[in-house]
């Protein structure tokens, strides 16, 4: 990957120029579809954008010392990590990439969650600390399944290159892996039934309770970018064997957007249909119920490799 294509991917498509409006659109789509399913009208189309601009115009609480500096830094790190993760997605065919970019993508996807945990603890608010502890417990649980699912897909192909994985033909192993990733997404995106860390009306906004103004705007943006990155990851895994048949970049881009929107709608249906689970039920769900799928996926992947 040359510097020019890397910059184009990070800044234009699927990077910032595409991802930021897409992030607002996905946030609106999630709120709107949940509202429609609850027989409400739901927010206006431009609401996430208005909220972002409004938050940028607000003042921030005075912060001092190293703790204050860290509190200002966390949202910026989270936004850059999420934007980098979106930029790495192999949306367009033959758009470049490098050996091991899957590992970088996984690290960048994990960074916003680590930032949220750190932000909750550095805010020293009791609600923030409870939220961070919940996020940490949840993150340990779903990440095992999430990582095993992706590693099993990668292990079956003997590569950590995203482009190779995106070009995989449809197979039961791939669908098993995608299913396991989909099960982890509600926890990763903090929506029902795994909305524990930011459980509103229970611990206010969890780790973000003490954030306001432009810092909160950055958190909202990083949350939206996480939506784009996570749904985009699923979309790239299931899309290409349709897209490559026709081969044009525009079509690949369109299919990517349509599939991402479909995943957002699927997650919204789940969020509207379920209630929040307690922390022990959530952890038990990942450790007892879904871990079996992940272990099944990775063992079949290893079996396939030894056989071939």
């Amino acid at each position: 990957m040359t510097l020019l294509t890397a910059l184009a991917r990070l800044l234009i498509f699927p990077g910032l120029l595409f991802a930021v409006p897409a992030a607002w659109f996905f946030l609106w789509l999630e709120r709107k579809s949940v509202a429609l399913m609850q027989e409400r009208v739901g927010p206006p189309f431009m609401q996430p954008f208005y909220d972002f601009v409004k938050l940028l115009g607000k003042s921030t609480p005075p912060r001092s010392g190293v703790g204050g500096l860290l509190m200002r830094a966390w949202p910026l790190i989270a936004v850059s990590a999420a934007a980098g993760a979106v930029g790495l997605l192999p949306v367009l065919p033959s758009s470049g990439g490098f050996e091991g970019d899957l590992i970088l993508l996984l690290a960048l996807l994990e960074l916003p969650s680590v930032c949220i945990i750190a932000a909750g603890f550095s805010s020293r608010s009791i609600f923030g600390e409870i939220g961070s502890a919940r996020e940490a417990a949840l993150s340990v649980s779903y990440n095992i399944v999430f990582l095993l699912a992706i590693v099993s897909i990668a292990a079956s192909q003997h590569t950590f290159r995203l482009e190779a994985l995106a070009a995989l033909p449809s197979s039961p192993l791939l669908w098993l892996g995608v299913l396991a990733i989909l099960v982890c997404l509600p926890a990763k995106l903090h929506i029902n039934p795994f909305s524990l860390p930011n459980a509103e009306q229970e611990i206010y906004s969890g780790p973000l309770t003490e954030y306001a103004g432009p810092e909160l705007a950055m958190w909202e943006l990083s949350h939206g970018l996480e939506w784009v990155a996570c749904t985009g990851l699923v979309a790239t895994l299931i899309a290409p064997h349709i897209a490559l048949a026709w081969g044009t970049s525009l079509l690949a881009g369109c299919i990517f957007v349509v599939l991402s929107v479909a995943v957002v709608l699927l997650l919204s249906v789940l969020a509207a249909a379920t209630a929040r689970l307690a922390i022990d039920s959530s952890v038990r769900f990942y450790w007892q119920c879904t871990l079996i799928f992940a272990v099944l996926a990775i063992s079949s992947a290893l079996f396939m490799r030894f056989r071939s």
Partner: protein
Amino acid sequence: MNSGSCNGCDIEIVAALSPRYDAEQLGVRLEGSPRHADILCVTGPVTQKAVRAVKTVYDQVLGPKAVVAIGSCPATTNVFIDSRTLDGPLDRHLPVDVFVPGCPPRPDAIIQGVAKAAEILAERGLERAADPSTRLRSGLAQDDRDAANEASAGVQP
């Protein structure tokens, strides 16, 4: 925020967020943390015990901000008038932008009051953006309170 109310108005606020009235169609969302909020809804006649909490929560909301007094209690102390446990009405302590009278007010009146407060908030935000000196001052700024006193307005449902 409840400053010693009988809970009647609080239930009507919850009703305003329910599918029947759906405040979210105007982009309104219930925020738990005062740091995330722009409009502070206060119910109740402001008891002596609640004064400090009301002022603290008001100071935790960052500017530009607006205050809506929900119900007759924060406006006039209602049937609790002359009670020795009260330190109300609300505008003795905070600059109130919109009064929504009623005991309790209807949910649509509450939504109308919040929408009115949002208009005031937008004007205040534009004034603030036009004046570069206010942007540099962070948090708990006195100018917000002064501006709020000038821009008081009432809503008759």
